[in-house]
């Protein structure tokens, strides 16, 4: 397990009575709120966290609003409209550290699947009155627009990782957010590998750990919610999948919440793109 870079070096144990509690903001763009709400999962420790940080912006739980500046700004959601681009650029300028949370902010999210298609066509399918929808052609991760200092992956993010991150912020230690494969957690838990024992395709070997290998523990293959791990060898895994599947099926396996992040994206492209109708009405090619 390898810790991720620390967020606020040297800052130690700020308490409610300390003058320098870090000013924290949580904002969202195109997403479902699931990640922000993970903060509420901290239940027992939520009050203690609130004592140690100054939560100046958190739309889900408080009515407080702030224009910044923020010591740490958590950003949820992908960037999909021109206004959102302007807003994220403004927020970056007033944030000492900007941390993206969740698959949408870090990888574009499930809505990034539309990045492979013509926008109009998606709009027509999804909304009855398409004229009201102002959208960029693509749903993109925050890091495509501004510099990001750290990220919490997952769909939704893991409460344990969020806690670890907050503790690292308060204590000044390196957050332990490993970048290794899901397989390590899977084996530590003693889960029987669904790929080897059942032939179920599993993205665990190329996906970053953090979820606790939940899907394999329930007999399902990993969907890749936490996005690519370090050294993700998707080409080899896709080749192995291809032995018993068509290219379309292999492409589909990588077309989840983090489909738009490399090298998943390249692997999907190499297999004819994600599932769905093309502009010309064709299905993805079966290479």
């Amino acid at each position, binding site marked *: 397990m390898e810790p991720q870079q620390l967020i606020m070096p040297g800052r130690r144990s700020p308490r409610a009575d300390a003058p320098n509690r870090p000013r924290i903001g949580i904002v969202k763009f195109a997403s479902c709120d699931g990640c922000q709400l993970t903060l509420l999962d901290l239940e027992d420790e939520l009050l203690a966290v609130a004592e140690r940080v100054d939560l100046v912006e958190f739309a889900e739980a408080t009515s407080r609003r702030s224009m910044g500046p923020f010591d740490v700004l958590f950003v949820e959601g992908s960037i999909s409209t021109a206004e959102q681009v302007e807003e994220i650029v403004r927020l970056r300028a007033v944030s000492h550290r900007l941390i993206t949370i969740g698959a949408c902010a870090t990888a574009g999210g499930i809505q990034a699947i539309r990045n492979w298609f013509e926008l109009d066509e998606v709009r027509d399918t999804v909304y009855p009155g398409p004229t009201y929808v102002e959208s960029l052609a693509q749903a993109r991760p925050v890091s495509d627009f501004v510099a990001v200092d750290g990220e919490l992956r997952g769909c939704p993010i893991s409460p344990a990782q969020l806690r670890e991150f907050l503790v690292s912020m308060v204590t000044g230690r390196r957050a332990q957010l490993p970048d290794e*494969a899901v397989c*390590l957690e899977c084996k530590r838990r*003693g889960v029987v590998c669904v790929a*080897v024992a059942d032939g179920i395709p599993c993205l*665990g070997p190329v996906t970053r750990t953090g979820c606790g290998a939940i899907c394999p523990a329930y007999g399902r293959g990993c969907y890749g919610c936490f996005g690519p791990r370090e050294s993700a060898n998707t080409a080899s895994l896709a080749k192995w999948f291809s032995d018993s599947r068509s290219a379309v099926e292999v492409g589909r396996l990588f077309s989840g919440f983090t489909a738009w992040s490399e090298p998943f994206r390249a692997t999907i492209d190499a297999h004819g793109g994600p599932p769905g109708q093309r502009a010309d009405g064709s299905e993805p090619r079966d290479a």
Partner: protein
Amino acid sequence: MTGATCFLPRADLDRLFAALRADDRTILGPAVSDGAVIYDEVASPAELPTGWESDTEPGSYRLRETGSSRAFDYVLPVTSWKRYTHPAFVPLTRARRDGSQVEVEAVLDPPPRLAFVGVRACEIAALDIQERAMRAGPIGDADHAGRRDAALVVAMECAAATSTCFCTSMGTGPEVRQGADLIASELDEGFVIRSGSATGAAMLAGLDLEPADPAQVERAAAQVAAVRTRIGDPVAVEGLPERLRAALDSPRWEQVAERCLACANCTLVCPTCFCTSVGVASDLDGQEATTERHWDSCFSLGFGRVAGDANFRPKVKDRYRQWLTHKFSTWFDQFGSSGCVGCGRCVAWCPVGIDVREELAAIAPVEGPRGPIPWPPAPDAGHAPAALTVVAPARHVTTSVVAVTQETADTATLRLATSDAALLAARPGQFVMVELPAFAAPPISISGIRPDGLDLTIRSAGPATAAIVALGPGAQVALRGPLGRGWPLESAAGRDVVIVAGGVGLAPLRPVIEAVLADRARYGAVRLYLGARTPGDRLFAAEVAALAGRSDLEVAEIVDRAGPEWLGQVGIVTHLFDHATWNGDRVTAFVCGPERMMQATAAALTGRGVDPAAIWLTLERNMACGVGTCGHCQLGPFFVCRDGPVFSIAELGTAFGREGL
């Protein structure tokens, strides 16, 4: 200890279970779960995988129901017994930080009393091999030792084999010869069983069984002989360690890296792999903290990472090479045996079916070269502990900061007070793990040894070191150590001493200088060559100035980049002795600095005729345990923590400076 072979009727298997329970043991054995046989708690023989067989191939495992009445016809489960002797998570410490007070204590839970039922021959070998690794010392692992000692082993000889088995080649099976308390073979009507230890003999006597019929013993022998025939001899092991050593630059490493996912499954299912990392958890303020160790693997990128995001094994091909060469070659250097028992788990449970047998044949072919041996054996190679005594838990000694000297913008020397005899007996070149609750413990060299304490000179390279150098007088910090082998000062007696330091590398050399000056007459000429990035990065500036004023040693300094106030030399440290007139063959050199600088220095020194066996340097690697049990710091056959960190160039051979090792 091996008494008569008895017969245990199938219906009486529960009597064996009862005897194990009466011995206050939890019974672990095979059971079907999630489409596979795993090892788990089994309350009664009814929970055994009766009527199940399993087939494996590279990347595939399938369970098959046969309806037979036999319970042990499956081949190896994905689980290995290491889950119980070397669990995936083991608590290490509990720590408290209250204001400036720090206390760290080792956590050592009493080992559970377990009975392993159905242990195969290769697994017995694996238990022994892993135990040797965890107890090879000089400081063994107390948790592992306790668990292993408390386990009772009931072996079951194999009656079936699968395509991934190769115990025959590795010399570990399929026959069970020793290492178990009870040794059984399953026949249709029951089990022939004999004891393999005094404990087993007593237990068997308690069961009061009839002797086995010679025909039954013969059938059992025929059964396992058939397994041997079925497996054949799939791996040519003759000269394998040497063949692999000669193949470190094989193009095949690149090719296998194209397929390898670096997912670590092979190492985690391997019954002998022992590598771990340390995790830290704490309350929100870092006042109460715990550490635990968990399974890790040389396949993870983080495994070889060091400060400044440098990494000793960045590429997957480096990591695959570490795995294969460790299992089949450097394990011999380290522990005197192969690290592979031929269980085939790594082959079956690789999600893309990479087969070590195939890779070995391609990378280190039988007809391939066998030498030259790139490194001599590790200093403590193959040292099985003389006696497997109980290993003491780790010691964490609280020390107090007496004074802090800011050396440079990012480096400070902490003067620590302690009365701990072991710490005070530290030798120059040894190091300690520095423990501040809630932080990962970094390895830090001892930069001063005094009658009442130690000095540590620490560069703020990341969060943990930043927090440590920020400590003020009166603050406490815990130390674990001293660790490692120090500088061999004795070997320099009567010879000229050359000391070459780069940057913070002067820290571990400071005690050498002090020791040499304290016994000045023992040595010939003493020369100090000190390099730093800039004049502001020079350590111990006042002390060095004082040394420069002495007539009994020579001091030369150089910086990479000068400022306006710097009148000295500019360039790399080797420039300081480019034009020196001294004679290399009388010199013993002690070198420390960044790895590149040490490579250049070693080359320059050998170029001047200094014997490689007299050029000593201290290496940096990622370290988690400091005692040879976490696997992080491996460099070819060496554990840098335990066998070093001080090595001579001659000892390291071509392992020194080799990329990705």
